[in-house]
């Protein structure tokens, strides 16, 4: 038996061919593509199913997604220092304000969006465009608990001993706690009343969990009531979990999810095509349908009966928050939450 000998020249040739083909493949691919940061889970799946094919069909542009939560996008863009790992951000209001403060966006020219006229007023500004709305309220299991009326019920029996809560790490957690604080005399910048009230019932609270684990905790019956958004409620219902959404008496909370061009992006043209595709009526309609359950922002979309509002204008009545005031206080609130709830 003879052994095949591999010469140094052969190794170098194979390495050169491999590297060369990778480089060629990249440049050929990059001509018509956009790399977008995307929330993992429902968002990523829905965008892969509906936005990517629509973008390819309308503009012959490939959509590549980098699954990242909003906070991770800011951290990565900041660490990259002008060489962004993606072309487009998708963010909630808190991280959006942080990104503006830290100059992570290119200036946005909304006139480049063909579908801009189909959005309600104020949905695009100098920094980006709104692509979805989120409505936050109370999700509860109607088979285990009576229907709660408002935020204060969360801290009363029989609800409190089945309550699952999260802290200030997420947008929905932060705005819900602010709304609870407001019912006890607090405000957008004063959540002290929440801490006073939660301290009285802390030992009874069923779960204080990581935001990502809350749907699993609800599904497993670890908690039967929680503050959450309509999309999570619809997703859980799609998995046959007993859950109903309740708009609190004082009003639900609305916030918008926006998209932005990353500073230093080389794909400006394709990024605008991507945004325009996302806000187009057919794509927004597809994103609203189960199992995606997004709240659309395009006026041409006929709203599903499962949504908590009859028209997009109704959302102007919902509670909104000024994140430029909240962000500077958030670190202190997180610290306080850790100290109050830890054993």
């Amino acid at each position, binding site marked *: 038996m003879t052994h095949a000998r591999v010469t140094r020249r052969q190794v170098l040739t194979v390495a050169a061919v491999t590297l060369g083909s990778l480089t060629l493949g990249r440049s050929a691919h990059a001509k018509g593509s956009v790399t977008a940061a995307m929330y993992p889970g429902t968002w990523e799946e829905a965008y892969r199913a509906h936005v990517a094919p629509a973008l390819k069909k309308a503009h012959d542009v490939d959509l590549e997604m980098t699954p990242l939560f909003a906070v991770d996008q800011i951290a990565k863009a900041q660490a990259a220092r002008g060489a962004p790992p993606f072309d487009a951000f998708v963010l909630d209001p808190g991280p959006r304000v942080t990104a503006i403060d830290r100059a992570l966006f290119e200036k946005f020219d909304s006139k480049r969006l063909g579908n801009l006229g189909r959005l309600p007023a104020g949905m695009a500004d100098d920094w980006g465009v709104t692509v979805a709305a989120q409505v936050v309220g109370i999700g509860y299991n109607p088979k285990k608990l009576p229907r709660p009326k408002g935020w204060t019920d969360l801290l009363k029996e029989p609800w409190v001993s089945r309550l699952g809560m999260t802290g200030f*790490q997420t947008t929905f957690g932060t705005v819900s706690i602010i709304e609870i604080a407001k019912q006890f005399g607090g405000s957008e910048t004063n959540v002290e009343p929440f801490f006073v009230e939660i301290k009285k019932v802390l030992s009874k609270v069923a779960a204080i969990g990581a935001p990502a684990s809350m749907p699993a*905790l609800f599904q497993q019956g670890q908690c039967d009531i929680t503050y959450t958004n309509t999309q999570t409620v619809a997703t859980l219902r799609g998995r046959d979990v007993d859950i109903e959404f309740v708009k609190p008496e004082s009003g639900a909370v609305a916030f918008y999810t926006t998209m932005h061009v990353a500073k230093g992006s080389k794909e400006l043209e394709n990024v605008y095509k991507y945004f325009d595709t996302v806000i187009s009526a057919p794509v927004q309609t597809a994103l609203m349908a189960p199992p995606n359950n997004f709240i659309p922002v395009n006026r041409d979309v006929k709203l599903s009966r499962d949504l908590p509002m009859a028209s997009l204008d109704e959302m102007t009545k919902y509670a909104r928050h000024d994140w430029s005031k909240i962000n500077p206080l958030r670190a202190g609130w997180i610290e306080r939450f850790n100290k109050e709830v830890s054993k």
Partner: protein
Amino acid sequence: MRERLRPAEWQLALPLALAYAAFFLVPLILLIAVSGFADETITTPGLAQWSKFLGDPFTWKVIFDTVKLGAYTVAATVLIGYPLALVYLGAGPRWQRAILFVVILPLLTSVVVRTFAWIVILGREGVINQTVLWLGLAPAPLRLLQTEHGLVIALTQIEMPLLLLPLLSVMSRMDPSLRDASAALGASKWRTLSRVTLPLSLPGLVAGCMLVFASSTTAFISQFVIGGNRLVYLPLLIWQQSLVVYNWPLASAAALTLLVSVGLGVAAIATVGRRSRAYAI
């Protein structure tokens, strides 16, 4: 006289050494440098974040809890893992292969999947609680999730391979005639275990304990998903400061504190291992 490395030998280690320098040493130096800034925007040098972090009694509670979690997990894995290793030692080749497969099995699934599976097991309507209620051992479901003992139970399973793999590797190289000789000289099974098997397996046990301690104290996903917000450990503080409020100097101070705490814990385990070995011999 110490043998000198020939050039060809140290050249072989060069790629790994360069990778370590680029991906461990440089980031570590950056981490130390960032922690030496007083403000979130990393512009003013100063130790304000260090004094804020270490001056808060809550930080010391979190450090203590983190080290305690590591110690509990090490104790639980040893308590369950060592007898299993003894079973492995006395088993035939076929059973040894089966045990090794069972030990490696958890490594074949992602730690995230294993962690979420523990929610199903430890939950209010989970397997353990259903069994407890069915047997009438408790009037209401036990609270296992978001408690320290629940987290230790989960980490014990998650980290078990890290203890067993080095332990089994050392045990499988042990000369069986030594135990036979001990028995032939009249030693009881317990005496053979304490004077022969245990001392000879100590290097593997110590290595396993170090790995379990380092891994469980830094297991952010398991700690946060199973422990929730009620149990605060150093990795959670690092995540909050680096990714939620973007205070990187404070996050760096917390990360270095974790590094030192884990390092001291590992060093303590190594020292205990060395002393026990000296005592046993």
